């Protein structure tokens, strides 16, 4: 694991993706009633930005991410990722990391990372090389031969991130990826993620319930309201990068966090 210190802020590059969400709505038809999960959501995300979604539980954050991943189709509106709609999962454009690491327990860490490549029949030697690189990037060099049950929670989530990165997609979606981790691991994982982000230049959409985490990580924080989910605030976090632990106690940090908290309390 490299320390965070000498990380330079990232300059948008070719492997960053642009996301355009226009007037998107999602209605779930259940046996008893229609649930409007999202209504009229519009959001523009520039390539290479780190965007954090926050909002009360059940406001549709996961639903929005599922639609960005092509795992679910919106009932209205359009979603464009690098100028094209996403009617089905496309791992070349979007990598997804879930709250649970969702590693296949019968595969080693390396094989788990290779999994998306194996699905595309990429030759074994190429995929091994890519997996090794990805694992190195997340700081798991030398752990490739282990099975998931031989890894700690934080390490598992690193493998999951490596799996999301292995095809070098321009967009990375993360749904509460660190929620299941203890606070210390969570802090280190946040720093690690920033390092990886800075090194690769992806566009990241990150969902969390932790306001501290949101402000600490983000370029922009998008605040959503309770059902039906709408965007109620969109702030730019102007704190300089690299972010440091000392900033957490600073005045700017507090003000930003308060502002988000007030929105969430009002709508929940």
């Amino acid at each position: 694991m490299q320390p965070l210190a000498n990380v330079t802020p990232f300059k948008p590059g070719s492997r960053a993706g642009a996301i355009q969400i226009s007037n998107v709505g999602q209605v779930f038809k259940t046996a008893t009633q229609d649930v409007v999960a999202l209504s009229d959501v519009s959001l523009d995300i520039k390539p290479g930005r780190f965007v954090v979604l926050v909002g009360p539980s059940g406001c549709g954050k996961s639903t929005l991410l599922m639609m960005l991943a092509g795992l679910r189709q919106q009932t209205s509106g359009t979603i464009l990722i690098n100028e094209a709609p996403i009617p089905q999962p496309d791992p070349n454009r979007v990598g997804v990391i879930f709250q649970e690491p969702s590693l296949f327990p019968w595969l080693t860490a390396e094989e788990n990372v290779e999994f998306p490549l194996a699905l595309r029949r990429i030759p074994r030697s190429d995929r091994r090389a890519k997996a090794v690189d990805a694992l190195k990037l997340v700081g798991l060099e030398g752990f490739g031969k282990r099975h998931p049950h031989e890894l700690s929670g934080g390490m598992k989530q690193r493998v999951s991130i490596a799996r999301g990165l292995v095809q070098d997609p321009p967009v990375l979606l993360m749904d509460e990826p660190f929620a299941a981790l203890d606070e210390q691991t969570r802090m280190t994982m946040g720093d690690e993620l920033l390092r990886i982000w800075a090194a690769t230049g992806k566009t990241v959409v990150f969902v969390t319930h932790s306001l501290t985490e949101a402000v600490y990580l983000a370029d922009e924080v998008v605040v959503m309201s309770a059902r039906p989910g709408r965007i109620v605030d969109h702030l730019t976090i102007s704190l300089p990068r690299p972010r440091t632990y000392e900033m957490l106690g600073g005045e700017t940090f507090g003000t930003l966090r308060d502002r988000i908290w007030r929105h969430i309390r009002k709508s929940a």
Partner: protein
Amino acid sequence: MSAATLRRLIVVSLVVLWELLPRLGVIPELFLPSLSSTIAAGWNDAGEYGHALAVTLYEVGVSMLFACGGGILAGAIVGSLPRPRVLIMPMVSSLYAVPLVILYPVFTVWLGIGSESKIAFAAIYGFLPTMLSTAAGIQTIDPQLLLAARSMGATLSQRLTRVIIPAAIPTVLSGLRVGGALVIVGVVVSEMLISSAGIGYLISRYRTILDSPHVFAGVLLVLAMAIAFNAAIKWIERKASIWQTGTREGQRAADEIQAGTIQPATA
């Protein structure tokens, strides 16, 4: 003393008691002939026992093919389709209450007293638990794994071969363990009831002429078969179970099957 040592000691002393008690006349040789005379009886008629073993093994093998193949297939179908599952599972577990052995006379009428009736009976005997545990195994697959595979662009058939089947393996294996054990039971029981060949047949025939050593030589052979089967399954499980610790659900299903909560009566 460690538990394993004591356990070995118990097994060894049981074997020794089997030899000593009849020899010392504590137990009449008619009820329990000593181990040495049992082995001698089996050795002297090794040809007969060998032939019987071949017949029994053949029946066990074919039944296992039907019971386990059919059970895994049916279980996979029932387990992955929610509606048939809700419809069928309670009926199947209700069927468990029926002493299936009463079906054997029906099979002898239909198929005669040769191998066919034994195979039919044993296959049905082993089918249900294999099917139930496979269905349980498919159900306990973490839906999050399927979602993750889908997010990586896995097609339907890739999800089946690369996620569903490997994830179901531990539960299917414990189904095989129970199903296979029941197939052995089914074959031996049916041979003992009405038949003209096999180890069960030898046990029954020597019983009617009160030749205890020969009866127990058969019993010993069946015990050896059960031990061999258990060892084989353990070996397969070890080979396939590097990751078993990873799925609590699958482990619990396996435990339940082992504890007999979803297992029909063995006779």
